[in-house]
């Protein structure tokens, strides 16, 4: 019986030793805080590791969650690089002075309008806001011309949204930047009256596809992925692109930056430079895993996507779109959060 105790004591020591050993950082390794989809990030980090020999440890989470975490951690953060799906989180960290400057070559790899105004983060991928609709429940002619129409009483019960998803906040910020606070609040209150609420875009697109609701606001990515999973026979939905500069056609820019507090800044710069290199962007474009627009010029996106130059997004700079700081407050005020 005392053997049992000995065993327990042994396990305890074992655990303690592992803890001590795993505490120290290895040379040539990076910690990446990533809000991008794990399958894309895995493709990229594996390729980067074979290319450079630098190992990348990934912490995955939702964009705003990781940004909040980085803010709270401050200089003690273990993170070297932050890679997220939407620019407002990057703008927030830029304003708080958490990012280091990126090299000119990295910034020059993508068109300047998708980069940080201060040159501290770089746009990597883009995705389009769209309206997914159930082709059995609604005809293309009945679809709204503008995102604002969805707040009208005629759309009651016919729309699904995911206000807690990191992709919805930039849409609110965009409406706020263009229309001002009273109009944004009125729009959100209209949505609240009309919409079924889901936790994330995956939930919205799945609900639309199974006929639980007629339409849903999502990023095009999620529909493409569901379509890939279910095939043509299982897909009962299609995408409606808001056009002509409507806010609904907002393009979300996914980007990355190097933290000032990085323990391995050279390797971190290398990783961010790799993300916008034609090798990495080609890898994603051909992967059939990632359905986003590569921002590196001349790389064709997955053929299931509407060509990038045919999109008609509203003209908003990254600075105008802002840091989402007001979006959560407005969502709460409207009763959506």
């Amino acid at each position, binding site marked *: 019986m005392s053997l049992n105790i000995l065993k327990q004591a042994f396990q305890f020591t074992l655990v303690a030793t592992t803890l001590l050993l795993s505490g120290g950082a290895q040379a040539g390794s990076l910690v990446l805080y990533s809000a991008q989809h794990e399958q894309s990030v895995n493709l990229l980090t594996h390729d980067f590791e074979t290319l450079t020999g630098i190992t990348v440890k*990934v912490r995955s989470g939702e964009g705003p969650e990781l940004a909040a975490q980085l803010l709270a951690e401050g200089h003690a953060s273990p993170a070297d690089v932050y890679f997220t799906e939407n620019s407002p989180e990057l703008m927030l960290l830029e304003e708080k002075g958490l990012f280091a400057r990126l090299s000119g070559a990295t910034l020059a790899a993508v068109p300047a309008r998708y980069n940080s105004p201060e040159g501290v983060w770089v746009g990597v991928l883009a995705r389009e806001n769209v309206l997914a609709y159930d082709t059995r429940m609604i005809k293309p002619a009945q679809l709204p011309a503008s995102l604002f129409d969805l707040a009208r009483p005629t759309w009651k019960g016919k729309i699904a949204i995911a206000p807690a998803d990191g992709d919805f906040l930039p849409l609110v910020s965009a409406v706020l930047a263009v229309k001002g606070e009273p109009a944004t609040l009125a729009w959100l209150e209209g949505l609240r009256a009309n919409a079924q609420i889901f936790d994330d875009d995956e939930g919205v697109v799945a609900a639309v596809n199974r006929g639980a609701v007629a339409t849903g606001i999502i990023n095009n990515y999620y529909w493409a992925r*569901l379509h890939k*999973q279910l095939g043509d026979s299982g897909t009962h939905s299609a995408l409606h692109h808001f056009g002509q500069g409507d806010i609904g056609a907002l393009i979300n820019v996914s980007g990355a930056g190097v933290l000032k507090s990085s323990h391995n800044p050279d390797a971190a710069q290398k990783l961010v430079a790799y993300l916008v290199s034609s090798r990495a962007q080609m890898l994603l474009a051909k992967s*059939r895993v990632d359905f986003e627009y590569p921002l590196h010029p001349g790389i064709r996106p997955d053929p299931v996507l509407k060509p990038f130059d045919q999109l008609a997004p509203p003209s908003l700079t990254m600075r105008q779109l802002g840091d989402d700081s007001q979006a959560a407050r407005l969502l709460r005020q409207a009763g959506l959060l």
Partner: protein
Amino acid sequence: MGLATASARRWRPTSRIPLGLMTLSLCVALLVLAPMAWTVAQAASFGLRQGGQLLLRPLVGELAENTLLIVCAATAICAVLGTSAAWFVERTRLPGRRLWALFAAVPLAVPPFISSYAWVSFSPALQDFGGALLVVCCAYYPLIYLPVAAALRGMDPGLEEAARSLGLAPGACFRRVVLPQLRPALLGGMLLVALSVLTEFGAFALLRFRTFTTEIYAEYRAGFDGSGAALLACVLMLLCVICVLLEFRVRGRARYDRLDRGARRAAMRYELGWLKWPVLGGFALLALATLGVPLGMTAYWLFQQGDAATAPVMVSASQLLSACGASLELGLSGAVLTTAMAFPLGLLLIRHPGRLSRIFERVAYLGQGVPGIVIALAVISLAIRAIQPLYQSTLLLLLTYAVLFLPLALVGVRSALVQVERRLEHAARSLGLNSWQTLWRVTLPLVAPGIGAAAAMVFLSVTTELTATLLLAPIGTQTLATEVWADTSTLAFADAAPFAAILIAISLFATWLLMSLYGKSAIPGVAHAGHDHG
């Protein structure tokens, strides 16, 4: 020899609490209280007016409605299902009773988020209220079945026989004689179900049904500060604490009721006649829903080709192995730490009963009523602000497990300590061993089997735990549970299957081992384990 008699003369048994024991117990109690206190403090940072505004917003009303609706519906359905299943197994000549009894207990070994994965991959139409209700009822009705079946077995059959011989029909006899005796077990079980549903997170999140727990997580993901989440957490904690306090009362009474059990004699069993066919059908359906679908769907997806577009990571042998290793390692070290922490507390409760130890006991059991999601979020923000070196470490995750599963370990440790013959310890002391030597050479060997059972229970709960693991696992650590979660939340059902299958296998095996090593008495322990799977 002379030395021994000298120290024997000096040593007398006393009732004073040793300083070391007191300090250790106090540390454990403070550890349990810290995350709750932090949550309340964070919520309080809002101030009365702003906090009130936030609490009275429409969303909170909706969440309260959703949460209370599913708690009440699930508790009622589980009560009916569990009680009738127990009655048919214990009081009728139903064919295959032993098998049905086993089938009614085993669902507790299947974590609710796994059955929710199975159902949602069976049909996406099962999302929302209907699906959520189905999953929690399937997962938690054994929490009623087990105590009610035990109460039926322990009842004095004479009362029923007297009632029947005085002309009461079987239905009236059940209502007027059996049911009142079942009340403590039934009420206790119902409160456990209510508490489990209140704190459930994983199953609801995967079924996209919004309750307080899922919304707390959403607030955390979308918000730039944790205070909004803390405010919702306080509301949820209040509901849970009400359940826990009610359960204390009921449990206290239940123990009292069982004192006058009298001589045991097998109760009479009813002949079902043609009725046995629909009843058998019902049991088969129940087994199909609670075990058939989770196991069947997992097996089905095992043989489907995964799709690279939805899978976070393509499944590989090395990944399976590392997830397995992480789950087992966390389970083992969590079990050791939690049991080690429960030990001083158990010692204090048994050896020094009194007001002080009762307070410690209540504090330890509080962890049972606080949802894993609340504790995990509090631990994260506490670690960032106050204990940086522990931040994102395995030790922090293990400490969180300890807070969550201390009640479980304490039950086992206490029942082991109760059986220790104190005179053996006194003899050891009088022969010259000091208190630590006595503990090491006499007490610990005596309680080792019981402690082993407690540790095994914690191991089982930790390996199937999702919420805290998801939020607190150090960078790069993926367990079986978090892999199932990552795959299912992106609808990559085929890729989740191998992880889910291994998790179910570990859980079933550990449960079987526990039951065969420690007999039926281990099962009520399993009932408590059901608590914080989500």
